């Protein structure tokens, strides 16, 4: 009997966890349960890792979207870089780029927009014939004269 009484005394001392009691009370009275997990170093690391991964994934998606990254090529079981058409094309384009630039080496400057430049400099009604004869196409955005264009005008 005495033993039973002692056991009951011990059972009376059993108390629920504070957090559990608070959540249960809130649930009983229909109050929204506040889910507040205890901040452990592990949860802190995991939380930040999740956010970091999310940002990294978005970045990767943007690179794939805007960078023209041909990732599906990696899926090819036989990806042979030396015969990759994209690489070959890039190198071939570099050759044609230099070929085009070589055409410009022997190129002498032609009058570009003398008419337009002069027409904006001459007062309305003034004679312009001698200058306009220097040629050039109409250019809507006025640019400074080139050296050759200016020399052409000055030699007239």
């Amino acid at each position, binding site marked *: 009997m005495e033993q039973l009484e002692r056991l009951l005394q011990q059972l009376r001392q059993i108390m629920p966890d504070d957090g559990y009691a608070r959540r249960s009370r809130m649930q009983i009275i229909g109050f929204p349960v506040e889910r507040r997990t205890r901040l452990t170093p592990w949860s802190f690391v995991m939380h*930040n890792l999740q956010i970091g991964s999310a940002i990294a994934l978005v970045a990767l998606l943007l690179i794939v979207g805007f960078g023209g990254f041909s990732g599906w090529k990696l899926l*090819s079981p*036989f990806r042979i870089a030396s015969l990759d058409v994209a690489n070959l094309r890039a190198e071939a384009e570099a050759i044609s780029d230099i070929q085009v630039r*070589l055409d410009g080496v*022997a190129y002498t400057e032609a009058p570009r927009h003398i008419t337009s430049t002069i027409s904006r400099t001459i007062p309305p009604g*003034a004679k312009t014939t001698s200058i306009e004869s220097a040629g050039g196409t109409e250019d809507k955005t006025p640019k*400074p004269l*080139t050296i050759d264009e200016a*020399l052409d005008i000055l030699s007239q």
Partner: protein
Amino acid sequence: MKFRIYHVSLAVFTLFFGAWFLALPRPSFAASVSECPVDSQIQAILSAQNNKELDELEAIRTELIARKDALRVLAKCLTDDVRRTREEVQKLSLSDERDKRVQGRILENLDNVLREQNLDEARINELGLRGTRDAARALKDWRARVYGQVKGQADGFALWLKSRTLIGTAENRLHNITGTLRSLDMIDKEEISRQLDSADHNLREARERHDAAGALLEQSADSGEISLAIKSALDALAKSYENFFTISDEVKKVVPL
């Protein structure tokens, strides 16, 4: 403010995109034609020519002043243009002795060009109306005949150096393709073997023609001739890429690339 991993991620993200954005190809700001800020002087000439209120003598005097001003600006533009070209040639980083010789020769030619352009202040002051016209004509002729040649040599030299890098890249490409074909056991296929031989021949041709263009550069030959020689080397080089594309197509028939 707490330092967190997502702050680091954000920083990495920003740095990465910043680097990507900076690496994007941009248009060259160097003008392909040499512009000169001489518009206001030209306008003054035209105003003097068209101003009916001025008597003849006053009109001539005003026009002459404007013409001389224009010539001063143009003389500066011309020398600036030569100096820019000189800087571009000088900043080419070269290790090969032959390259350095060509570079030195072109720099020397550019210095001579600068010396030849002798439209200085004293000469401009002496000019009359007709004299300014003749001086402009002479400058244009000098620019086309003398400077145009050396500028052509300078541009040709830069492109010749770039072409050499491209030939080297193509030679590596041929080497790698040969290795790949060997590992795929496709090197003895008739069409592939034929294309490989042709690519090898074209690359040798490109190298020889490129060397010939180098000899022309060493001799300070005509810029048009130099340009044609480099183009000829590049034509042979382009043909080797046609071979590579054909090989790629042939391999694609058997192996998914």
